[in-house]
C-alpha cells in the first residue's frame, strides 16, 4: 500500500520522511517557494510555501507528509498571502528588475509574475546596503538579498567553507562573509563552490558575463516558474 495525501484534490504519493513540498515536487506539482531547494535541508523561513494542512497553515517545506492529510495550496486566500509575502520581500530590499542582470533568471521575480503581483504595494524601505565588488570574479549585491540562507547552507553543508552567514537581528538581519575585512575577496570563496550557484535572486553574480543571454531568452522568459516543480535556471 502506498502512502498518499491529497493536495488541492489530487492524490500525492509520498515516502516516509518526505515533507509535503518534497512529495509534491516528486509528483510534479509546483508549490511556490524561495528558500527551499531540494538539494538542501529545508529551512522554512521565506514562508512562500505556506499551505493549509487539515485547515491550519504550515510551511510545506518542513511539514512532514502524513497519510490521509488534506492539503490546500492553490487557493485564492493562500495565494493572496503569498503575494503579500512577496511584496514584503520586494520592499525590504532594493529590487530594480529592469536593470538587474538576473531579470528573467530570478526566482523572486518569476514567482511574483506567477502570483500576479502587480506592484510592491507597501512603502519601500530603501535600505542602505553596500555592494561588495572586492572579489576578482564575483560580485555581491546585497540589495537583492532575501535572507533565504541558501548560500549559507550550501557553503556550510556542501562546500565545508562557511563563506556566508547571517548576522544582525530582525529587520537588520544581513548576510555577512567569513573575513575579518568583511570582503568576499578575503574569503576562500571560489566560482566552483556550490554556494556560488545557488542564489535564487541576484546577490551572487559572476563578473564580466553580464547579459550574455539577452533578456527575453532567459529561463522564466521561456516558461513560467510553475512549469517545473523546482525551477532549474540556465547556466550562464
Amino acid at each position, binding site marked *: 500500500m502506498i502512502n498518499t495525501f491529497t493536495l488541492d484534490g489530487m492524490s500525492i504519493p509520498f515516502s516516509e520522511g518526505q515533507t509535503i513540498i518534497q512529495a509534491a515536487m516528486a509528483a510534479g506539482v509546483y508549490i511556490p517557494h524561495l528558500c527551499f531547494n531540494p538539494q538542501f535541508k*529545508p529551512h*522554512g*523561513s*521565506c*514562508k*512562500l510555501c*505556506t499551505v493549509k494542512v487539515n485547515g491550519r*497553515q504550515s*510551511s510545506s517545506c*518542513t511539514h512532514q507528509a502524513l497519510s490521509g492529510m488534506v492539503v490546500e495550496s492553490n487557493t485564492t486566500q493562500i495565494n493572496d*498571502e503569498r503575494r*503579500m*509575502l512577496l511584496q*514584503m*520581500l520586494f*520592499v*525590504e530590499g532594493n529590487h530594480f528588475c529592469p536593470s538587474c542582470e538576473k531579470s528573467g533568471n530570478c526566482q523572486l521575480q518569476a514567482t511574483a509574475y506567477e502570483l500576479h503581483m502587480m506592484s510592491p504595494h*507597501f*512603502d519601500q*524601505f530603501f535600505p542602505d546596503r553596500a555592494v561588495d565588488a572586492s572579489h576578482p570574479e564575483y560580485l555581491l549585491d546585497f540589495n537583492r538579498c*532575501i*535572507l533565504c540562507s541558501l548560500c549559507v547552507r550550501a557553503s556550510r553543508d556542501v562546500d565545508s567553507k*562557511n*563563506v*556566508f*552567514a*547571517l*548576522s*544582525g*537581528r*530582525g*529587520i*537588520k*538581519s544581513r548576510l*555577512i*562573509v*567569513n*573575513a*575579518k575585512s568583511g570582503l568576499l575577496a578575503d574569503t576562500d570563496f571560489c566560482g566552483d563552490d556550490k554556494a556560488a550557484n545557488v542564489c535564487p535572486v541576484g546577490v551572487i553574480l559572476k563578473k564580466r558575463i553580464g547579459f550574455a543571454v539577452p533578456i527575453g531568452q532567459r529561463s522564466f522568459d521561456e516558461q513560467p516558474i510553475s512549469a517545473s516543480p523546482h525551477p532549474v535556471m540556465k547556466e550562464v
Partner: protein
Amino acid sequence: MVCQINTHAAYLDPILIRHRPSDLLQILILAQDHYGYIHSDAIDHISAALKLPRSKIEGVAGFYSFLHLQPPGAYRVLFSDNITDRMSGSVALMESMCSQLWVEPGKLSEDNLLSIDTTSCTGMCDQGPAMLVNGLAINRLTQDRANAICELIREQVPVSAWPAVFFSIEDNIQRRDILLDSHFQSGSSLAALLLRGTDETLQQIKASLLRGRGGAGFSSGAKWELCRQAAGDARFVVCNADEGEPGTFKDRVLLNNFADMVFEGMTLCARIIGAKKGFLYLRGEYRYLLNHLQAVLQRRRQQGLLGNDILGHADFNFDIDIHLGAGAYICGEESALIESLEGKRGTPRNRPPFPVTHGYLNMPTVVNNVETFAAASLIALNGGAWYAGIGTGASSGTKILSVSGDCDCPGIYEYPYGVTVAQVLDDCGARDTQAVQISGPSGVCIAPDEFGRRIAFEDIPTAGSFMVFDKTRDMFEVARNFVHFFKHESCGFCTPCRVGTSLLSNMMDKLANGYGSPYDFAEIEKLNALLQSTSHCGLGHSACNPVLETIAKFRPAYDTRLAHKDFVPSFDLDRALSQARQMTGRNDTGAHLERSQD
C-alpha cells in the same frame, strides 16, 4: 600586531579553557566584560581556539542587543522603553540626559565616552523609570537622579564607584499565598522525593495538575513524563529565566528570594527524568542577580543538594550552570532559548520535534518557567491533591502577577487561580482604570466591562504581566509602544514577522504623525491575518494583537488619528527635510515648507 593579538589571548585563554564551543554566547559575554566590546582580533583568537568560522561568531554576536562589535563607549546608558517607563517620564529624562551630555540617542558621543539608547523592558516596571548602565540596573529615575548620573559620567567616575542607592532594587511583594509564604527549607522537597520515590513523586506532580507558568500552560507532569520516556543518551533540565515579556518581573523576585525553591524544583525534575545537567538561562538584564545565584548554587553543593551523591544517594548526580542572555526577547521562546544555550543565534526551531524529545544538543530536555519549578518544590513537599485543591478546575495552584502602571501599590501579587481582574485592581489601589494589559504585549487588553473575568487558563491565561492604565492614558500610544517592541525583538528568520513588524510600526507611526485614514485600518487588519497565519513562531502570531485589541476596544483613541477620510501617503516632504534642518541647526520658518505650517 602580534602584541595586539597577545593582548586578547591574555584574557581570552582563561575564558576559553573553561568553556566548550557550544558555550559561544557565554564566551562572547565574558570577552566583552573584559575588553568592553568584542574586538575583531578577539574573534580571530576565539575562532582559532574553538575551530569555529569567524562568520558564525560574528553572526551570533550580531544577534544579541547587548553584544558589541564596535566600541560602545565607556558608559552605555540604556533606558527601559516599556510603556510603564514612558508613563513615568522616561522619554523626557532621556531627552534631558542626551542634551546635557551632548549626545544623540543611539549614537556614540563625539569623544567616544558614552552612548544613550533605549532597550526593551528591563523588568523593573514597579519601580520605573528604569535604565541599565553598563548592564547594571538603576531604577526610580528622577530628574535629580538623571542629573547626578550625567555629572558622574562627565567626571568619568567608574560605575562601580557610583552611589549604591542608585542600584538598590526592591522586591515589592504585596500579596503572599502558598508559594511566597511557604518558608521553604532547602532540601525539604528533595527529602520528600527520596522518601516517596521517583515514580510516586512524578504521580504527585501529575496529580497536582500543575501547568507551565510561562503562559502556554502545558501540563508539567506530562512534559516530565514525556521527557523521561524519550530516547536519548543524556537528558537536560532548563529553567527559563529569560523573563522578557514587558511588564513581567516576578521571576526576578523569585530568584532574589526563593532561588532555593527554584533550584530544588529543577533538581526534582532531574531526578524524575534522569538528567545530570541543568541550566538556568538568566536574562542579561538580571545579571546583577548572578553572584547571588552562584552563591546559592555553591551553598547547595556544600549542603549535598547539588553535585555528586545528592543527599547521600550514589546514583543521584545533578548540577546546574547559569547561562546569561544578552538582550533578545525571542530567547524566552523555548526552542530559541535552547539555540542560545547552544551558543547560536536565538532563532526558534521548526517544531515538531519538541524539546522534550529533541532539546539541548538534540537530547530530551524539559524547559520550564522559574515559577513552575518553584511550584514543583511545593508539590513534592505537600502532595499533588493539596495543590490541585487550590485554584480552579483547569488551573490548579496560584499565580504570581507582576502589577505595574497606574495603581498605588505596584509589585508582586500571588493569588489562587480564578481571581478576578477587578479584585486585583482593587487590591493594588487602581482608580479610574481604563484598561488592563494582561500577559504583556502578546497577551490581551481588557476594558472595564471585562474586569469580572478571571486569571486562569480557562479565561485569561497569563505569564504574569498585569499593566494598569487609567483614564488619562492614550491607548493608541500603548499599542504603538508594543508594536515597536515587536519590531525590535523580531528575530528576522521568517519573512512575515521580519518585514511585517516593521510595516506595522511604520503604519502606527503614520497614524501618530496625522496621516491616518480608514485605508490604514484595513491594511493593519490584512497584515494581522498574514502574520497570524504564516509566521514561524508566537512572536509573529501575536505582534498585531495589541493593535487589533485596542482598535476593537478603544476605537476613539484611533479615531482622533484618522485625520483623513481617504488614503494619504505617509511621505511628508517637510518631515523629510528634518535631517537637513538638524544638520544646519535651523528650525526657523524659512527652513520649513510653507504647506506644513498651516
